[in-house]
């Protein structure tokens, strides 16, 4: 893949370096954490898609994955907990020429931000949502998340979790997302390819990346370290492109269905809005590209 990259950086030792704020290194993520792997995939996708980096914006919420925005050398917004999607909605509608990526964790997107997730999917707002799902609240010390599989031990379920976890692909599919894929951090090429597809897709895209949290999920559950997670992902993942999303729920140690589950076309929010106003108002409608604010 690298050989094909048109890349101009004489001093770089790593091709992803120009995409990172190197003055902010070292990052806060633990050894074995998968978030950095996803960022690496993201930068690969930026290179390969030849994205206009001046027009690509990353919006994060709060949590370990919420820190991604701060490490990327792009216009980047670290917002409030759960609200990356509504912030991104306002940003995209005010300036439709931007490619807006929401980069957030499972707790941020599906617990405190769950309402925004389903409504953005319903509206089909043109956002590319990258959900790093580590099955736990990492930043705050390993509390149960809506995605934590049953029979796991967490700091807030010291005797074992008993709530059913969310099947996120099923949730966003039902709400209307036009692109839904899931991979693990073992699947680095597939993740980068899905990100590229999402960049090209108009509408609400959702990529779930199952990612290890050795410090707070695996250790407490005697599941080993980051390498053990890779072995588990390799052994347990089954590619099921097009699988009905109702059948891809996760369990603690069972199969991980991966692949592209949904890729469909329906008009995005702004296209519908413009069409509606053109139909209703005719020449009276003033369509704006960017909100002029001198």
């Amino acid at each position, binding site marked *: 893949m690298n050989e094909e990259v048109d890349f101009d950086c004489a001093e770089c030792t790593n091709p992803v370096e120009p995409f990172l704020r190197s003055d902010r290194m070292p990052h806060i993520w633990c050894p074995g954490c998968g978030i950095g792997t996803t960022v690496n995939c993201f930068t690969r996708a930026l290179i390969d898609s030849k994205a206009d980096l001046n027009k690509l914006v990353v919006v994060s919420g709060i949590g370990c994955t919420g820190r991604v925005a701060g490490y990327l050398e792009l216009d980047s917004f*670290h917002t409030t907990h759960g609200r990356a999607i509504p912030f991104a*909605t*306002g*940003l995209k*509608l*005010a300036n439709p020429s931007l490619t807006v990526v929401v980069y957030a964790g499972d707790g941020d997107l599906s617990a405190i931000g769950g309402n*925004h997730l389903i409504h953005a999917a319903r509206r089909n707002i043109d956002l590319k949502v990258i959900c790093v799902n580590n099955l736990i609240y990492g930043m705050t010390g390993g509390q149960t998340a809506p995605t934590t599989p049953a029979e796991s031990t967490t700091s807030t379920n010291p005797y074992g979790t008993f709530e059913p976890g969310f099947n996120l692909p099923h949730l966003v599919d039902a709400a209307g997302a036009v692109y839904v894929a899931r991979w693990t951090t073992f699947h680095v090429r597939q993740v980068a390819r899905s990100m590229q597809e999402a960049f090209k897709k108009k509408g609400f895209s959702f990529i779930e990346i199952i990612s290890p949290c050795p410090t707070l999920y695996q250790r407490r559950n005697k599941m080993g370290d980051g390498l053990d997670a890779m072995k588990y992902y390799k052994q347990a993942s089954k590619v099921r492109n097009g699988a009905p999303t109702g059948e891809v729920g996760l369990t603690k140690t069972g199969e991980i269905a991966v692949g592209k589950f949904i890729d469909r076309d329906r008009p995005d929010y702004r296209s519908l809005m413009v069409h509606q*106003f053109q139909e209703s108002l005719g020449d009276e409608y003033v369509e704006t590209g960017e909100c*002029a604010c001198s």
Partner: protein
Amino acid sequence: MKADPAGVLTGVHFLDGDHACCEGALAAGARFAAGYPITPSTEVVERFAARIPKVGGTFIQMEDELASSIAIQGAVWGGAKAFTVTSGPGFSLMMEHIGYAIMTETPCVFVDVQRGGPSTGLPTLPAQSDMMQARWGSHGDYEVIALVPNSPQECFDLAITAFNLSEKYRVPVMFMMDECVGHMTEKVIIPPADQIEVEPRHKTHKALGTYKPYECNGDGSLVPEMAHAGEGYKFHITGLTHDERGYPAMTVAAQQKLVGRLQDKIRNAADKLVLVEEDSTADADVVVVSYGITSRVAQRGIDAARAKGLKVGKLRLKIVWPFPDALIKKLAKRAKAFVVPELNLGQISREVERAAAGVKTVLVPHAGGGVHRPEDILKAIQEALR
């Protein structure tokens, strides 16, 4: 600069305060609004939803007030002037994002058409019981600007001021209407666009690679210049304590520097942020301090007291936050007492009492749901002089 004529509905109108507020926002250049329905404020965004496709811009009805209050900030960083509109219960939900706008210095306007509370309270009836919430509702130390109109005309005029101040100081501005002012219909004169002054966004013109989002220029201003997403600056914005580059900085020194500046940029400008209506205060024995709908009821109490030969001055606050401490202190040198009627059980009266520093301050409380009886205000004036 002058207002964009596209958003200015020049003419003489018969409008309620909610509709006039919407026209003020449009005249000020607001081209994005996000909201969630809530009585008695919804008419503001209903009008915006009808008007904005013909002006050029966007309204989106979000899934809740949490979403509305952050969507507007995304829109601001995307280049728009933006606002949201709500009432008490929704205002409560917006508090975290008032803090985010403070911390990230995102210019935007929060309109709160106040109704009776706490909780669901009195959805269709007036109160002024969110005044302290407007000042202190979000966590952490900060300063805001809050304006209070008392007529539909002022809902138009002061809405423009609210947007202008938000741009000038890069601060969220609270526009504190009440149900009475929101729903009363009066004559509203909207001047031609070339007679409306509008504060432009203070954009940076620095070369790419040299811009730091929170660096102040050496001109003594404590307000940094803004960039918008998509311009190539590749800047970072966070609600965490940050340095001039916008990078998180978890130190005592960074906290003091940032939070100190956020406070000072408003406090140092306090003398420029006094906006009041003053009448016969110079030789008054009693000064009635009021704001919003209560000022119009208080006028009758003041008139009745003057008819009885009492020397009563009137001070109406149009900007309540920052509180005009210096003005109250000045009046306290002459006046024997202050009388403060308000549709709450004592909020701004405490500020008057604090600034008056020893001069008698009489609250005329009202729990909300209606307005004061003028005779209660008259009685308070008489008792204040005893």
